């Protein structure tokens, strides 16, 4: 449940689209007896977005559709699907919108590679800059007056 963000929005944005939310997302009756399967179900649900909420995962959301999706995830796991098959099953029905982790292919590659790309570019730029700074800049010679003053001082 993204209440923190929601509240921030509320502070700064007009009160809009505010659905009542209750405390619990994952209900005790949803939990699978098999701990391994349950752990996988939780991990999968954390990466799936609730289709009707503002940026909550189905693991956090108390919306009825999220509960349905959590149950579907568990059903598929019990039926023997792999994590990938479960996710594919849900994406087939709801589209890639429900994936919080956009797959790194197609145009999304830009999203994934933008950071490392910019870092490399920045490192290159920084290297060139630092190397240039390493060349000593010729110090301005003393002016005649300064030289005279220096001789004066050195005499003392």
């Amino acid at each position: 449940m993204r209440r923190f963000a929601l509240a921030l929005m509320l502070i700064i944005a007009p009160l809009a689209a505010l659905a009542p939310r209750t405390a619990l997302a994952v209900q005790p009756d949803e939990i699978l007896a098999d701990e391994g399967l349950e752990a996988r179900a939780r991990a999968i649900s954390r990466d799936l977005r609730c289709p009707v909420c503002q940026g909550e995962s189905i693991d956090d959301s108390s919306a009825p559709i999220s509960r349905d999706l959590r149950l579907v995830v568990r059903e598929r796991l019990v039926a023997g699907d792999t994590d990938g098959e479960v996710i594919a099953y849900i994406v087939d029905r709801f589209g890639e919108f429900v994936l919080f982790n956009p797959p790194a292919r197609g145009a999304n590659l830009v999203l994934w590679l933008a950071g490392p790309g910019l870092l490399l570019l920045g490192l290159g730029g920084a290297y060139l800059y630092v190397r240039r700074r390493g060349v000593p800049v010729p110090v301005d010679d003393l002016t005649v007056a300064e030289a005279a003053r220096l001789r004066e001082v050195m005499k003392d």
Partner: protein
Amino acid sequence: MIVELGHFALVLAFGVALVQTVLPMWGAYRRNAALMAVAEPAAILQFVLVLASFGALTYAFVVSDFSLKIVVDNSHTLKPMLYKISGVWGNHEGSLLLWVLILALFGACAAWFGDNLPPTLRARVIAVQGSIGVAFLTFMLFTSNPFVRLEIPPLNGQDLNPLLQDPGLAFHPPFLYLGYVGLSMSFSFAIAALIEGRVDAAWGRWVRPWTLAAWVFLTIGIALGSWWAYYELGWGGFWFWDPVENASFMPWLLAGALLHSAVVVEKRESLKAWTILLAIMAFGFSLIGTFIVRSGVITSVHAFANDPERGVYILMILAVFTGGALTLFAFRAGSMEAKGVFAMVSRESALVVNNLLLAVSCFVVFIGTIWPLIAELGWGAKLSVGEPFFNAAFAPFVVGLAVVLPLGAMMPWKRGEIGRGLRALWPAALLAIAAGALVWAMQTGRSSMGPIGVILGVWVVLGSVTDLWTRTGRGAITARLGRLGRLPRADWGKSVAHAGVGVTIFAVAAMLSWKVEDIRVVQIGETFALAQYDVTLLGVDEVEGPNYLSTMATLQVRRDGALIATMQPEKRFYPVAAMPTTEAAIQSSLLRDLYVVIGDAQDGGGWAVRSYVEPFAMWLWGGAMIMALGGALSLTDRRYRVAAGARRTREADGVPAE
């Protein structure tokens, strides 16, 4: 009457801001002292007027003046006084007024504390600050006026959103805004310097305390918000990578970078153009944050259509200020000649690496935040970018920063040797790896995140201690301890803030990897095990609060039979707003928090109960507070006590340096 005066004061403030922008700027151009002298009184007057306006709005909330639309929408007579007052900024219009108030406050501070600035620079800084005021005052007066009256006032209000009726959230926005808007000062200094065409060590020294103050406030504001999310949310999450959170995080990252690059400008007269660019970008991201949050364009693309006027106006402000600043930068950047020379291995280079990592990590957060928008506008794809992406894409930067931090902090200016730094730091490195290995051996079959967090945390904290200790020079321990107390506050501030970073990194890793969760149905009187604790549900009662109804459970927590805590989590219902909230019960201690939430009554009897052991939770906010404390310590360094500092340097002229 008072409300009308407040409204009038706001309109007057707009006029004053206009004068504050135009006359000093023109005066500085013409070298006209009389015109430049308008800057200070104008800045102070603008602040007083906005303050009066803010006071009038607060008054309307305190006396529950329901002829005002904003009060009807956000208040109720039964609401506790604290939340009547915090209701002033618990909505779009009022929070914008707070924004402008803080903006005017910073302008006035430039007038009050700017005695030692060259007159033209001071006039220009205050003028630029005034122009931001003009933009936001127009925005407020034309699209978001808080003083809109209702023709037929209702008998009572609709209440503030119950989620916002919380002490943590009452103080969260003011701090956040002090941070956001504080960056406007760095921006104004950058623009003024670009117009002057001069950036030197003195400029670096003036701009740093403002950036530092903004960064400290932003740190506190973000930590308060995160803490509030943790206890109010219901399952101990503390950060969600939501667009709105990212909006506050991006300026924080850039302010951190700016803080460090301004040091290079001040001490070594290098990185000037980059520092100016950072100052522009940091405030630019504050504006982008304002845009994201107030237009709703990113959380939900469709909300944009609901309020096109506001969104478009903020976009215009963003385009004019950031675009204008960058254009000015493009023309003037070439004239900023760097002086300092430094080698590949040096403090300067380390700070360049720091800046690179912070700036690129900010970019990663930015692109992740706007990617759904790009995808929808670009090729019509509806997709989401959330926690998994941000965790994967952001974590490497944290690791990189933490690894480099202690080495860079101890590196000498101009020219250093990696070997020498490592010699001083090897005990810290050894201890960090040993601690990580110990934790790795102790934990059972979980991720490597915990041990990595321990290694990085210990490395950064011990590295900061080593840094401070090395500064005491050589000699007997007692002599060095004595010198420790006499080190400049800036040195202390640096080490304390860095140690805070280490503590925070450790706490984040610990909370993410060692949290224990339990969800179950509990009958009244039943006892269940949570990690090493035994939790008993004693009963569930209906309780009536001042403006809500509560379902309150009472649980006892025992360890080996000894009573540790009696906890009372609540489910509240606010009838006026017709909204439920969750009040988790939290028992904090040094090493862990116990965290209990009560859910719904079950059909077969009993109650749904969620309980958690949150390891090292206090360390997370503690770490953030240590960071802020470090910043504050550094701010109190005598070099920054502006007027006093200027006088002292003059006195000290006769004494040879070092």
